[in-house]
């Protein structure tokens, strides 16, 4: 499914985001670089608080500043740096060219506005669409995302929809302007398992229909395998590995990815066998350790890991890893 030599639509370079809190400065994102091509689905995985959402929200100017601060970096979209665009220009891009879906559909729709208003908002704003036409389009969108009886439900309020239906409304709302890039920030985390599958399936179908590129932020590696072209693994605010989805599962290069995949419960395993977990907890982001942030939990760690943070290096075709070691041999590379 990988669009060979496709056109890069968004390139994030060396992004660094910090939050200044009373307890100190939280280094949420510490120099991440990644990109996405037209029509590509890139999954970003990692534990809670590893900077997945923050990096995405900061490129759209959605983090509160202050306490947030974009320390450095660039996010080049169509030749312009999103991080340097004035708010007014960003507004024109948000929801129109780059849209974002959020984690909890129960709280991300406005409770006092009916869904018609919320669905047509982007259309009216970005395309000056007359209300009647926007409404027609809204019905079509609701049909497309699988909301039954769309016409009658237009003037319903969010509380009249179930969680799964609200996430469908959310998706319809964000796809209304036919964006080039859709950022889905853990869109299935708050839903129960059967609904999760429906939403993933819907996202795959929508991607086929609209052909937009998609960032899928998640910590569910099972979902990733089913839909992503490429995977970016993040840990403590840095990218530790980047690979095509098949390569990653077959041959993880970073000890963290390795451990993550080992921790996945499998149906073909014996029931008695214990689930593997990664010992320890992710480091506090208040202090930036000099070495590799994963070193304290890493079974392969040696002297160098504590002193120097390994850079993200290209090690193959579209493969990058940030580790001093070769996981297979356990020897320094």
């Amino acid at each position, binding site marked *: 499914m990988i669009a060979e030599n496709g056109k890069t639509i968004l390139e994030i370079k060396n992004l660094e985001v910090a939050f200044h809190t009373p307890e100190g400065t939280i280094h949420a994102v510490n120099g991440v670089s990644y990109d996405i091509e037209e029509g590509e689905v890139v999954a970003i995985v990692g534990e809670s608080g590893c900077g997945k959402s923050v990096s995405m929200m900061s490129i*759209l100017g*959605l983090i509160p500043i202050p306490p947030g601060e974009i320390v450095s970096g660039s996010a080049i979209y169509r030749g312009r740096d999103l991080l340097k665009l004035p*708010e*007014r220009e*960003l*507004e*024109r*891009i*948000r*929801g*129109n060219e780059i*849209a*974002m879906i*959020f*984690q*909890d559909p129960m*709280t*991300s*729709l*406005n*409770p*006092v*506005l009916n869904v018609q208003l919320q669905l047509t*908002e*982007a259309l009216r*704003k*970005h395309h000056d669409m007359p209300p009647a036409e926007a409404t027609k389009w809204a019905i079509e969108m609701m049909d497309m995302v699988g909301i039954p009886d769309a016409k009658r439900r237009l*003037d*319903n*309020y969010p509380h*009249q929809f179930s969680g799964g239906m609200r996430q469908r409304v*959310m998706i319809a*709302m*964000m796809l209304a302007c036919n964006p080039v890039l859709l950022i889905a920030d853990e869109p299935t985390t708050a839903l129960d398992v059967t609904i999760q599958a429906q939403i993933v399936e819907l996202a795959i179908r929508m991607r086929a229909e609209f052909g937009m590129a998609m960032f899928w932020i998640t910590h569910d590696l099972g979902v990733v395998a089913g839909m992503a072209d490429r995977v970016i693994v993040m840990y403590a605010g840095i990218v530790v590995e980047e690979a095509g989805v098949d390569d990653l599962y077959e041959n993880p290069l970073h000890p963290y990815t390795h451990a993550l995949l080992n921790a996945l419960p499998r149906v073909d395993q014996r029931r008695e066998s214990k689930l593997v977990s990664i010992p320890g907890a992710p480091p506090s982001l208040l202090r930036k350790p000099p070495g590799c942030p994963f070193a304290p939990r890493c079974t392969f760690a040696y002297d160098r890991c504590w002193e120097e943070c390994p850079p993200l290096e290209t090690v193959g075709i579209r493969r990058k890893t940030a580790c001093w070691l070769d996981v297979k041999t356990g020897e320094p590379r």
Partner: protein
Amino acid sequence: MTIEASRLPLTAEALEAPPLSIGKMAWLRFRRHKMAMIGAVTLILMFVYAFGGSLIYTEAYANRTETGNRLAAPSREHPFGTDVIGRDILARSIYGGQISLVIGVAAVAVMLLVGVTIGALSGYFGGLVDALLMRFTEAVITIPSLFLLLVMAKFFGGQIADIRLLGRSFSGSVVVIVLIIGFTSWTYLARIVRAEFLSLKEDDFILAARATGTPTWEIIFRHILPNTIAPIVVAATIGVAAAIISEAYVSFLGLGVQPPTATWGNMMSGAYNYIEAAPWLWFFPGLLILLTVLSINFVGDGLRDALDPRSRPM
């Protein structure tokens, strides 16, 4: 009803409860609040009294003095009696009611404009904007409002010419009083709105709205403000009652709306020396103020319950 007719086909649509809008749900809850319903009916009757009454009595009649008939007790000709210069109290209480009610509503409009704007900006932007606006609000709060009201009424009174509106002309002091009450009563509302904005702006749906490219002013006024409508409506309702009372205070002390334009407040101002000798002077306007303020407060109470999003319909 025959058996045939009761066996309607049960479609999914027929089984489903019709969608209730937020307004409909609030109405259902409000209707169950007995005191609020009584209050609402009384209030409507007050408006009918003040505005319908002008079809029976002319304003000229209400302002006509009849010195030969001063301080007449209620009689057939003057059901509520006459005042110190022989004006008919019934007719004056009708025209005075118009002014009192209009002052109540208009002052609240001013209060809403100032209070909501200051509260919304303060809560949404936070930081320096918030600090400045809230210090200003606190400064206004610390001034005793009755004192401020009296000083401003004295200072601005009589500076505005008479106005013609709705086919009647009244003293410019009405406008002065409306503005003064409006500008001294918004602080409480501003604080409520600010508190609401502080919590609402952190909600996910605001983030989602921003992610669709909604400009800031639209986020403030179209996405957040409707969510704060319940406390605003309640505060506004109580505000009408408070404004009517404030007007009565100031006018009773002779600094408010100037005669011959009548208000319930200034009708009582002349009654001070005749509390025992001519109780009808203060009884009728006093009763009208009491009923109006009481019923507005009951309505406010009912609205508070009806609009509370945590309470369920039925």
